[in-house]
């Protein structure tokens, strides 16, 4: 009953999700350091695999998910889908930074170099990262919020389609030096495969939790802005300052307008 009386549900389940994430990460660390055996060739250095590869997979899946959410935005013209797409892509970029840094550390320990330009997997991931690094400047460059949301959605769909194509292209390349991940999971020993899957799950949980935090924070801010405008007597549709963050105050603004009109 209490839940149904709440007007917005961005924060619903956030506590449960956060607790589940903390537990999952603790279990993952225990499995990585106390359960998974040492790999024969790389030894202890291979432990980076359990953080680097899940980060990369979750980041790439996040980019694709951002494209799917953008499709939903273009279909419905609902600004909330644009906000979800924005937050997912934003979070995927952060995870991609983590992937690049942990990958460089692994490369230094394994190959003796921080970066290897002849490695297709590294370079293709960098290209995807740089492609998505233009997403925020693109949004910021467009002042009109509706046009900004539309163009950003088109970008997210196009770039989201590029991610799996890029992945397949790298797979098809002949000069392949990077250790295979998805294709070789079945070749991993059972304990390593279990640890990897648990690590992947915990990274996905962390991603979902941070996205939910971000969505809740942004929605709260937009509600506060709408409330401030309402209290200060400013019109709800007054132009806002230029920002790369999507405008989702439509619902709040609409309710504010309805409130103003209902005054006798």
């Amino acid at each position, binding site marked *: 009953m209490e839940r149904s009386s709440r007007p917005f549900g961005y924060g619903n389940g956030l506590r449960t999700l956060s607790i589940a994430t903390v537990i999952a990460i603790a279990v993952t660390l225990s499995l990585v*350091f106390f359960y998974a055996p040492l790999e024969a060739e790389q030894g*202890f250095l291979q432990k980076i695999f359990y953080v680097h590869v899940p980060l990369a997979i979750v980041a790439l899946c996040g980019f694709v998910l951002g494209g799917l959410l953008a499709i939903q935005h273009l279909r419905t013209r609902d600004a909330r889908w644009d906000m979800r797409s924005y937050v997912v892509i934003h979070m995927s970029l952060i995870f991609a930074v983590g992937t690049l840094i942990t990958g460089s550390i692994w490369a230094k320990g394994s190959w003796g170099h921080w970066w290897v330009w002849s490695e297709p997997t590294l370079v293709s991931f960098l290209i995807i990262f740089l492609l998505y690094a233009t997403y925020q400047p693109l949004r910021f460059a467009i002042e009109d919020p509706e046009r900004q949301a539309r163009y950003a959605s088109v970008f997210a769909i196009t770039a989201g389609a590029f991610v799996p194509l890029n992945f397949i292209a790298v797979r098809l390349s002949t000069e392949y030096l990077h250790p295979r991940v998805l294709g070789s999971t079945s070749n991993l020993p059972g304990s390593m495969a279990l640890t990897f899957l648990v690590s992947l799950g915990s990274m996905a949980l962390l991603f979902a939790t941070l996205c939910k935090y971000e969505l809740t924070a942004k929605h709260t801010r937009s509600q506060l802005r709408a409330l401030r405008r309402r209290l200060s007597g400013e019109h709800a549709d007054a132009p806002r300052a230029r920002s790369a963050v999507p405008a989702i105050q439509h619902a709040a603004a609409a309710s504010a307008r309805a409130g103003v009109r209902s*005054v006798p």
Partner: protein
Amino acid sequence: MFATILAETPALPLHTAGKYVAGAYIVLFAIVLIYVAIMAIRLSRIERDLGELLSLSEHTGTGRPNASPAGGQAGAGTERQGQQPESTLA
């Protein structure tokens, strides 16, 4: 108990690879920590904005008691609050 667990666990070879593994995991936790710090800053900003809005609503509420349905409800609420203090405390 902790010492027993540590004694049972395999020795971790932290000689050469240890610094790289530690670095990779520290990066992950640094990202999460930085994010939590940013969220804490945002939360304090939201708290400050809420305080400003509260003072603004008090200001507009005293000047225009029936300016909006929300204001009217608030006014009704304060009246009820004045009428039924015992039941609320009970």
